């Protein structure tokens, strides 16, 4: 392990999130490198200062008293005898039954790929690769679960910077990560479901993000990004834009 690697592991090391093996490696390096040792010591001291300083913020006495009072009141209410326990139970059982049906109903409705695409955009996930367009494609050659097709070639202000192989609900998918003038745009690509009169282009907003879904018989793409709509449209082939 060299200093460069160590500095990248320092957070994990100090947070106690390294496995024993890695920890031993870090400590072996620290033993022989005074520069890194000093840096780690300084970081530990800084963290102690942060912790001590910020732990000094305490709940005000008025708040403590208010919480204590409201808890007393709530307990008084809860402890009062109930006249119709049987009725309460009956209502509970009925509600559970209704909820059960609702859940089964929801589970049977088809999963919404666009929702999953938003989740995939927001979550970091299993196996991913950051690099140049060529490196990303080489990664996909070996890892893509289907015949993928890079949705948009690099051009001015649009750069493919990574890809991730994942699942959207039940479907295997490739998520492409683009850098668009410093902002991140994800394009989730998956094999199209058998056409059921699905619109060829659907624009939507979810959680403040523009979501566009387009596709043909073979592949469907869902574009997610915190960009204005015209910017997102750059990702959609002209044939779909009309």
């Amino acid at each position: 392990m060299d200093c460069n690697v160590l500095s990248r592991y320092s957070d994990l090391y100090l947070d106690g999130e390294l496995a024993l093996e890695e920890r031993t490696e870090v400590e072996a390096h620290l033993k022989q490198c005074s520069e890194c040792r000093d840096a780690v010591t300084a970081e530990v001291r800084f963290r102690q200062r942060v912790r001590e300083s910020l732990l000094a913020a305490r709940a005000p006495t008025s708040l403590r008293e208010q919480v204590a009072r409201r808890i007393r009141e709530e307990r008084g209410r809860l402890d009062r005898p109930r006249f119709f326990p049987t009725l309460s139970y009956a209502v509970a059982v009925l509600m559970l039954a209704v909820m059960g049906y609702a859940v089964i109903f929801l589970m049977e409705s088809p999963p919404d790929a666009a929702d999953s695409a938003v989740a995939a955009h927001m979550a970091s996930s299993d196996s991913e690769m950051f690099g140049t367009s060529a490196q990303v494609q080489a990664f996909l050659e070996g890892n893509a679960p289907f015949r993928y097709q890079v949705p948009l070639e690099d051009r001015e202000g649009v750069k493919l910077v990574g890809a991730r192989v994942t699942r959207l609900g039940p479907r295997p998918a490739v998520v492409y990560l683009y850098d668009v003038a410093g902002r991140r745009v994800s394009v989730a690509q998956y094999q199209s479901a058998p056409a059921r009169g699905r619109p060829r282009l659907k624009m939507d907003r979810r959680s403040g993000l523009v979501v566009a879904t387009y596709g043909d018989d073979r592949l469907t793409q869902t574009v997610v990004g915190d960009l204005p709509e015209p910017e997102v449209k750059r990702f959609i082939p002209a044939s779909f834009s009309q």
Partner: protein
Amino acid sequence: MGLWPFGKGRRNATRFDREAMPHIDAVYRFARSLTHDAAQADDLVQETYLKALKAFDSFQEGTNCRAWLFRICRNSFINKVRAGGREVALDQAAEQVHATSLSGWSERAFYRGPEAAALLSATRDELEAALNELPRDFRNVVVLADVEGLAYKEIAEVMGTPIGTVMSRLFRGRRMMREKLSGAPGGARGVGGGEVLSLSKRLKDRENGNGL
């Protein structure tokens, strides 16, 4: 549901006082971090404790009560924000998108020499200010990790985000805070492009006991 059998109620009451109440300072600090506002934080702490009282049956003894309270606190806050009609704003979504790019974790480097000295000489007010200036999701994660001492996994549960997101927000948040305090854009030593960072996979392996 309020179906509270008597004997158990009394026993639960002592348990609640013993296990949940000592964390009121921590819950208050977290509420401040969430709301950024003293009055709102007061309301949120009260709501958290009332909800915790009603749901105390579902708290599993032996697990981290503080993390459980934080989770209730965060959920209450989210519900409040939604009920107030203030949908998750665009900037916050952008923040999230920004945060979830994993590349940030590898850029972190040490602060050495004069920068390290600047960090160590920061006053309490400066530390507080630097923390308060972080975007909310970053601030929350830094508070949970560096002030309250929660593990990544616990933070992920409190915040309802994947562990990779926690790490990326934590590392970036720390870096932003340090850059602010040292007055220098910190030693982002960047890694050569093309490095495969299957970080969450490594964590998963670790959770399965295969070592990172």
